[in-house]
Every structure is written in structure tokens, then in C-alpha cells.
């Protein structure tokens, strides 16, 4: 069973555009000489997320390996090429199983400020996303069976954009509840158009 809850903060679609702190500013020569980089968001996800991702990865690897092994057992003629193939898949799968969850744990981070939600995610390719509080439309919590087992939750923050959803996967259950409550309260208090 997967549990879902949704907090919707519906905004009237008329109203002033939110102004960000700092006010409008424009610098035509925006190519700066100093190096710029994104700082990682403040909070890590729960360390139990490593176990969760490992379990998921184990499932994925098994889904590929089991048919191959059955093939080896059932189909003697194919063994000369099926066995090396299966071994190669197993090695790659094992590497994925060992590397991906730890790598993800290093990358997946999140942070909320008074004005915005900021997340980083991914492993081989990484994404940093930021959404202002004033544009948040819904805050969803999702707890799949595995996540429930490990006391985790995924919080999805959507904006009016078709592409702007922020997913905070593998948060501690209590942290997620607290975060959802805080986000819902803040977004309801922040005036904005949401579009």
C-alpha cells in the first residue's frame, strides 16, 4: 500500500507579482570574471535512503538477472554465450548496486529558506532546482511500501510549470511531515500569483 496526501494551496490568479528581495537589477555585463558555482543545499536526506536505494537497485538488477539465469538453466545450447553475458551483466549490476546509492546520498540534498525551496538530486547527471515559495502550488507526500518499511517519505513540490516539480526523495518520515507542514503554512502566507 502506498500512502499519499496532498496539501493544496490554491491562489487566486489575479494579484501582484511577487517581488524578490533585492529588487530589480540588471547588469548588462553579466559575464563575471570570478568563478561561480552552486553551493550544495544545507540538509542531507536520511542515511536510511542508502538502504532504500540499494533495495530498489537490487530489485532492478534481479529483474534483469533472473530471466538470464533461467535462460542458462533451460537452454543448454545458448550457454557458451549466455554465461559470459550474464556474468558481465552481474558485474555491472553489482557495481551499480554498490556505487549508485552512496553516490546519490552524497548528491541528494535539500534546503528551504523564507523565500525558496532548493534541492539537488541525481548521481551521474545532477540537477539543482529552485522554486520560490510564492509560486508553489501543491506539496505532496508519498510513501511507497519500501519507504514505509524504512521510515522514509518523498515530498514533491509542484509549481505552475509543467517542468518545475521538486522531488525530495528519501527524507526521514518525521522530517518530511514537518517540512510539509512548514511549506504549506509558508506558501499560504506568501502572496503570489503562482503563475
Amino acid at each position, binding site marked *: 500500500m502506498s500512502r499519499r496526501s496532498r496539501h493544496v494551496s490554491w491562489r487566486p490568479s489575479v494579484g501582484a507579482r511577487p517581488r524578490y528581495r533585492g529588487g530589480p537589477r540588471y547588469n548588462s555585463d553579466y*559575464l563575471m570574471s570570478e568563478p561561480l*558555482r552552486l*553551493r550544495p543545499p544545507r540538509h542531507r536526506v536520511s542515511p536510511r535512503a542508502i538502504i532504500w536505494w540499494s533495495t530498489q537497485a537490487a530489485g532492478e538488477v534481479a529483474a534483469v538477472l533472473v530471466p538470464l539465469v533461467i535462460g542458462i538453466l533451460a537452454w543448454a545450447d545458448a550457454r557458451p554465450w549466455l554465461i559470459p553475458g550474464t556474468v558481465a551483466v552481474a558485474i555491472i549490476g553489482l557495481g551499480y548496486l554498490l556505487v549508485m546509492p552512496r553516490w546519490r546520498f552524497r548528491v541528494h540534498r535539500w534546503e528551504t529558506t523564507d523565500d*525558496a525551496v*532548493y534541492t539537488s538530486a541525481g548521481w551521474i547527471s545532477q540537477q539543482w532546482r529552485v522554486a520560490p515559495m510564492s509560486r508553489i502550488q501543491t506539496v505532496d507526500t508519498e510513501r511507497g511500501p519500501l519507504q514505509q518499511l524504512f521510515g522514509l517519505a518523498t515530498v514533491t513540490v509542484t*509549481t505552475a510549470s*509543467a*517542468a518545475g516539480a521538486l522531488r525530495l526523495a528519501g527524507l526521514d518520515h518525521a522530517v518530511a511531515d514537518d517540512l510539509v507542514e512548514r511549506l504549506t503554512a509558508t506558501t499560504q502566507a506568501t502572496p503570489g500569483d503562482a503563475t
Partner: protein
Amino acid sequence: MTAVVMAPGEPDWQRLNPWMLAVTPLRQLAGLLPVIAVVVVIGIGQDVGGRIYSVVAGVLVVMFTGMLRWFTTRYRITSERVELRTGLVFRSTRSVARDRIRSVDVTAGPIHRLFRLSVVKIGTGERAEGREARELTLDAISAAEADRVRQRLLDPLDVGGPDRSGATVALAATELAALSWSWLRFAPLTVSSLVALAAVAGAVGQLINDVGANAVDVGGVREKLTMAPLWVVIAAFAVLVLMIALGGSVLIFIEAWWGFTLVRELGGTLRIRRGLFTTRSVSLEERRLRGVEVVESPLLRFGRGARTVAVATGLGGRRGHGRGTLLPPAPRSEAHRVSGAVLAEDPSPTATMLRRHPLVALRRRLVRATVPVLVASAALWLAPVPSWVAWAVLGLLPVAVLVALDAYRNLGHALTSRYLVTRHGAGGRGTVALQRAGVIGWTVSQSLLQRRAGLVTVTATTAAGSGWYSVIDVETAEGLAVAEQAVPGLLEPFVLHEVDGVAHTLGSTA
């Protein structure tokens, strides 16, 4: 026919236009014609009477349900919502909140126009949540009534008071663009030429199927074909295909864009009117506009043509399924001029000089284009096929290089005082000018290879158009600086500026 009577209290429910009693059965009958034809043709010789009776019965049922629809359909426009009631047994009431209405489109097909009727489609452009309807269609009311409804619904000042549509009609409108027949030269450079070809091929196939292949033999065509040398046959066929594509696309263009005008109406609405047989009117509220895109599809770009497409909320999907089209295929300079006119900017942000992306981006494109060709060619050398196949594939290499060069040349971005401009594409290309105030979030993404090359893809998310617009393969520092400056305060707290070996955010020192 009564006009919309706005009593101070709840307005009355209105019926659709009574002419619909005739129009609906006519249209349904037209749709049934093939079926009727089949039934009659197949029925010849065997129990003609029974066939005819069944056809007549079918037609009567269709006409009856069509009439029933008129009797059971009512709509009303209150100060807060537009409501539509339909159905006799299964009654349904659909309603749209007026402050959610994003578009009011008016279309009229040939049969509707015969009776001076128009179909009004009221859209919210939102995913339906709960009992709210996404879209309401009034099919159909009189053309004059449709125009009044359109004006009332798009008038932000109309809150259900007395009908002021008469007053708004009198207000002037500025014409931003109008059709020039010289644009017909772009018609063959659009997909409509392919549409025309497919239509003709389909029709010919149908004909051969129905009448039999012998019809092709009329006038000894087959004999002449077999006598003529092969190249003549091929050339004749090519000329035929070309003529169908040319003629068909020109006809489609004329039907779709006859009388095209783009007008800015007072009250902040952009209105596009066009169409020869089926007239269409699309209205777009300017406060929903977040930018424009100048789209140069491959062939169109070759002919130095382009289209202008609105980036607006509530159109639904990228390029709004054609509903956001502000300008048909036209000269590129015209597309930029109209972009500027629509955004009330001169010169248009879409025509801004764009910053080039670093040369590493070119390397990435060259690798991406050539490696698949090389791998395919190598695989074909090993495979049991004649060696000329592998050579032929290798011959694609120059093409791949050209495509990569073009893709790199098309990369660019700029910030103007109000717009973020970005361009990309290989072969064809799109230049988007997105309002900086319309950006509702950022996504910075980096693959392993991008990280090694020191590049990022910076994506602005927005409620309008496709929902996201990317600056692809930009140098990391520059990409972050663009995002930081385009929307002050949004990404700023998370960007570290390194000065004299000390990293800090802009907010922490300013």
C-alpha cells in the same frame, strides 16, 4: 434571438441558437453519408426496400437526437461563472469559473456560416481538478451573440453588471499584422505540403481500392508507361509529386490564413482572425503572455522564413497545439517585427545579438553527431553486407559534421532588460524570448560529460508554453550568472562567488 440579458440577480438560462435544430442533423448527416452510400451500394439487388427503410430509420434517429440536444442544452453566464447544462436522462452541469477563463475561441465551419452561427470554446488551459470543467463549448450561438460573449468574458472589468459589450465594441483596436499574399511562397516549405501529399496518396489508394486497378489503365496509360524509358517515368512521377505538394500546400495555406489579422484590442487582448471556409478567431489575454518564440522549422529556415508563436499560460502544451500561433510562415524579419509588436518592445528581444556558447559545446555536438555514424559504419564493415553499404554510411559523415556545426551556431542566449532570450536547434531552430518576471524557478543540470567540459544547462521554468526553456551547454559561471541576474533574489542565495579565494553569496556581502 434574444441578446444576453443581464438582470441584476441571477441571469436566465439561454438556449443555443434555434438554427441548430437544422445544423446539427445536417452535420451528422454529412458525417453519415459514406455509411449511407455503402449501405445503398451493397444493398443493390437484394432487398432494396429493407435497406432503404433501415437507412431512413437511421437518419431519423440521428436527426431526432440532434434536435433533442438543442432542447436539452442551456447555458448562462453569471458574474462568477459560465455554466452549461446538457442531457435529458443523464443530466450534466459543467461550469467554469470566470476568473479561470484564459481563452475564448470562436470558430465557424461552412455549415455554421450558412446560418450565421459560431461555436464558442471557452478554455481554462488547466488540468481539471475536482468538478471544475477544463473547457466549455457552446455549439452554437449566433455570430453576433458569440462576439458579445467573447468580449464579455475577456473583459476584466465586466463583473456581471449591465451588459457593456456595446461600449467595448466601439473601442478602437490596433492592427499588429495582416496577411501579405507574398507569404504564399512559404506555404510549400511547411508540413502542409506533406499533408497534401498524404491526402492525395490516400485518396488515390482509396479510389484504386474501390474502383479497381483497371481505372489506372484509362486511355492506355499503362501501355505508355511500359513503353517509356525508366528515367522518364521517374521524372514524370517526381514532377507530379512536386506539383501536388506545391498546389496542396498553397491551397491549405489559403484556407487556413485567408484574411489573417493580428489585432491588439483595448482591454489587453490579442486577437487572431483567419480562415476562408472555416473562420477562426483566437483571443489571447496579454496578461497571460510570458513571451514569444520565433520558430524556424528546417525548410522554412532554408527559405528565410519563420513563424511567431506566443508563449502564454493556459494554451495547453508546447506551442499550444497551434493555438498560440501569432503569425503564419512569413519572412524572418516580419516574424521578429511581430514579436516586438506583440511584446511592445522595439527592437524585438528575439532579434537581440546573442552570446555564443564556448567552443567545448561545439566539440560535444561534433562527437554526438559523428560517433553514431562511425560506430554504425564500423559495425557494417564487420556485418555480412556488401562493403558499399558501410561506405555509404560513412558518406553521411560530412552531413553529420554540418548538422553539428549548425547546432553549435544556433546556440545562444542573452538577457535584455525584461527578457531572457535563448536559442537552439539543429537544422531548424527556435528563438524564445521569455519574460524574466514569468520565470517561476530554475533547474541547473549537469551530466558527467558536461561537468568535465565545464558546462551546464540552465532551464527556466515557467507556467507558460512548454513549461521550461533551456540555455543549453553554457559555461557554468556564465549560466549561473544569467540565472542569478534574470530573476533577482531567486537563485542568488545559492550561488557562491569566489573572490580572492573566499566564497560567498551576493546577498551576504552587499
